């Protein structure tokens, strides 16, 4: 599904360019959930931006394929239309644009790129109501401008709302658990788990085991200094929780 090979990427331009991803290899087959853990500044968010095509991030080596297609040359919206979705660590506020308008515009834009019919207003409304109810978002919240005035936890729930509406093929969750209270963590995890599917892959970036209690990963990778240092099963996350990165990293190096 998602195959990353020996990826090297820099941030910044010209003389300021700084290599953050330094030869990263990762393979997430369809149907699996992989967790990425790693110290602050390791390059986790950077990896998510490189994969989704953000400006200012330059790939200088290696490759990344989604279902066999090279995604690194695509525009961000083309990657989105191919089914790549990023739940942002820091969701962005868009003043004046109601959530419903935003998501419907996005969905229709994606469908158009894929050569599909636009979704009807009635159909969209029906689905959005159902999804919002699952995530405990009120209809009033969906009328508000995207992320404006939303609490930290609400923003994260809104990311998952968008994800469930867009039904992407490959999900990257960047610290979706940060800022969520205990109940919201459960609500959000239920939403994510609902999307688990033999055709779908997920990359879950997190610092904490508690998310992985809810969204059980098939594999856990440790990203440090721009590389995957070590990988293992769910037990690796438990070990990290106990021993910290220092213990695990000194062993891996």
């Amino acid at each position, binding site marked *: 599904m998602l195959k990353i090979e020996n990826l090297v990427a820099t941030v910044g331009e010209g003389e300021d360019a700084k290599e953050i991803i330094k030869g990263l290899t990762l393979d997430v087959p369809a149907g699996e959930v992989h967790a990425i853990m790693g110290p602050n500044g390791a390059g986790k968010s950077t990896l998510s931006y490189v994969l989704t095509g953000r400006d200012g991030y330059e790939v200088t080596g290696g490759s990344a394929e989604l279902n066999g297609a090279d995604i690194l040359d695509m525009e961000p*919206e083309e990657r989105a239309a191919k089914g790549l979705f990023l739940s942002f660590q820091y969701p*962005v506020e*868009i003043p*004046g*644009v109601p959530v419903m308008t935003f998501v419907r515009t*996005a969905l229709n*834009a994606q469908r158009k790129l894929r050569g599909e019919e636009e979704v009807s207003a009635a159909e969209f409304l029906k689905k959005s109501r159902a999804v919002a109810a699952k995530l405990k978002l009120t209809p009033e919240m969906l009328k508000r401008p995207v992320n404006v005035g939303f609490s930290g936890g609400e923003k994260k729930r809104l990311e998952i709302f968008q994800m469930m509406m867009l039904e992407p093929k490959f999900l990257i969750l960047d610290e979706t658990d940060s800022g969520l209270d205990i109940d919201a963590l459960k609500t959000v995890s239920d939403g994510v788990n609902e999307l688990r599917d033999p055709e779908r892959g997920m990359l879950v970036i997190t610092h904490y085991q508690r998310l992985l209690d809810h969204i059980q990963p098939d594999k856990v990778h440790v990203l440090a200094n721009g590389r995957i240092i070590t990988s293992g099963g769910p037990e690796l996350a438990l070990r990290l929780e106990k021993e910290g990165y220092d213990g695990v990293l000194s062993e891996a190096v």
Partner: protein
Amino acid sequence: MADGNPSADEVKVKDGIDQNTVDAARALESKNYSAGFSTEIEQEFAPKGLNEDIVRFISAKKEEPEWMLEWRLKAFERWLQMEEPDWSNVHYPPIDYQDAYYYAAPKKGAKYESIDDVPEEILETYKKLGIPLKEAEVLLGVEGAADSAADARTDTDKPRVAVDAVFDSVSVATTFQKELKEAGVIFMSISEAIREYPELVQKYLGTVVPQSDNYFATLNCAVFSDGTFVYVPKGVRCPMELSTYFRMNAQGTGQFERTLIIADEGAYVSYLEGCTAPMRDENQLHAAVVELVALEDAEIKYSTVQNWWPGDEEGKGGVYNFVTKRGDCRGDRSKISWTQVETGSAVTWKYPSCILRGDDSVGEFYSIAVTNGRQQADTGTKMLHLGKRTKSRIISKGISAGNSDQTYRGLVSVHKKAEGARNFTQCDSLLIGDTCGAHTVPYVETRRADAQLEHEATTTKLSEDQLFYARQRGLDEEQAVALLVNGFVRDVIQQLPMEFAVEAQSLLQVSLEGSVG
């Protein structure tokens, strides 16, 4: 209006926003302007230039009464002694007032017996502006067309709009005359009104914008060729939106529209002014005057969507727009709102304003101004609080892209008798790229300590974070910009009548095309 379908594939620049904005702005070529076509029909011109004879020629052409000619001549004399203002923040080559035509009319005359008599080119013009044929017939004054078109419109749920089309100087025709007449509403070209309702015109003309007001207004008084007249009688709520499409067509024709709208006691009217002009190499001067009078408990809503040719990517050509628009809340509890969406013109100089004379009267100004390429805009509003407990509200949204420059200039003035006056002003500027500018110049003058004046101003750059967020969700760059811009201007768009709001949104998109690289 623009059909909003310029070829999206023409402009395609990618990569970093900032450094490429310059290139993208350069790519804003004439082909992006979808209303840029001109109609090849024979025109009847007044001789080129400006002198007393031209003023007499125009007046004679319009079969005007003597008092009207006198009024024009008085203005002309005054104009000769005035000097062009140079204080505003716009730069343009000197205008040669002798090098323009001051009168142009379609040669065939304004009315047609059947649609077959209408020159094909004129019909084409209307088609490109998106006016349906049935309505074009009515606009063009084809006999018998009005009734059937009115019927056709009544069948639909769409809000109805009566249109008074100005094809260059002559108002070609008016729609819905009959129904409006039944309601007692007078809606016609000002030349007709001068002939048919001289007392009304004489009573109000020049009472809001006096002849001596400013250089361009005085010029307009002398040579105005046509425009619109509206009178809504006491207690009448005008049964439909009234609308005018202004078109400038003949090369080198100065345009001097004159609009006069009067809402008598307790009356209500909503008026839409739409403007598109075909592209030209020469700069076209436009100096309109709009006067609004609201008597006791009356309300006038005046909305403009303006899409004049801004000039090519080097800043050549385009319309010079020097307009005087003023509303007089003459009666107690009267209300006037100006809503405008400005995306065109090479140079714009425009301050719709309100004189809040009546006690408890309310003035509102909602504005969206977009400048791109090398456009310059100096706009704003003036709110003059004269009456007690008068209230005004100003919401201005400026969007600058490319190498354009815009200035918001607002004046809130509270006079001695305006006890308990209140104003709220909010000016937001959005910059797209690094080579454009936005300036906010608020002036406040108050003679009262109890006046409550609030001012908020923000300047933001179109954020890369927002753009990426939207693109990650599947929007392409242009859609993303359009969405963000629509979000930015939402408060103002919501003030527009429904059908105008949609048009305004697509116009914003067209005018910002290629502004982000």
